[in-house]
């Protein structure tokens, strides 16, 4: 290689170009795995832990719609957040979900609820989802 200079029996020279190649590949790898898998977290929400939950189906990604349920410590109730908008009246969600279902027949609702939310609140939101005619539902959980 040009610039090798060593030649013959000389000591093997440290090559900077392949090292940079390897470094960049490693860098791209780690950037990919950290940015692709990091949660689109609602910071006020701690997902329940479930190590055996299945990986999200990538084919269904465009049909998924997230419903966030934060936990209000003072009232021990759920706070419904859809598209960063806190829904005071849960009844408003029904026409909204019906519209969504009409627009996308394969719609899947992802319930992203805080682990401390009482199960009764989950049941409440599931009732709305069912009333909107949506049968495909998934419960989001963190791997750790």
């Amino acid at each position: 290689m040009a610039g090798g200079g060593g030649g013959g029996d000389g000591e093997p020279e440290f090559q900077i170009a392949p090292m940079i190649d390897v470094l960049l590949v490693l860098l791209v790898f780690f950037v990919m795995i950290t940015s692709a898998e990091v949660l689109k977290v609602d910071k006020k929400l701690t997902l329940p832990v479930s190590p055996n939950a299945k990986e999200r189906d990538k084919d269904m990604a465009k049909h998924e719609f997230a419903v966030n349920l934060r936990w209000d410590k003072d009232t021990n109730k759920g706070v419904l957040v859809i598209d960063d908008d806190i829904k005071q009246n849960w009844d408003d969600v029904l026409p909204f979900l019906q519209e969504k279902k009409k627009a996308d027949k394969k719609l899947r609702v992802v319930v992203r609820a805080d682990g401390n939310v009482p199960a009764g609140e989950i049941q409440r939101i599931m009732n709305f989802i069912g009333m909107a005619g949506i049968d495909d539902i998934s419960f989001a959980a963190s791997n750790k």
Partner: protein
Amino acid sequence: MKKRSHKRKQSSEVNLGFQIAPMIDVVFVILLYFMVMAGDIQIENAHNTKLPGTTESTDQPVNLPDEIAIRIEDDGQVYLNDDPLDSPENAKLPELAGSLNQLRESSDASKSTVLVTIYANELAKYQRVIEVLDALTRAKISNVTFQAGSPD
């Protein structure tokens, strides 16, 4: 003579060449950052299910599944068909997963399916419901429905 060397120094200062060493330093730091971050990432997974009463009906005769009820009390105690299993503090629910696995195997042997209904009390924590779903996943049972309140 002195003047000329001064001039040469100035011209070398102006000509900023590409420096490989600082670039490698920076790349190393970025690499280290992402390597450390990679160990700590949380992945969002999901338990998929179908809501009851919304599936399309067929004219085909349907084999009724073996129904199993799992009850979750407010304190987190889990009951499988009224038998208490595991302590409320045990997040991994090994007894529940083991019993469910046996039930699933016996159902498979008799060529029927298992249908699990989860009755979670109003004030039971959602985390506990997910732990039960996790145990069901380990037992390879995917036919799960939900019901509010107690089975009675």
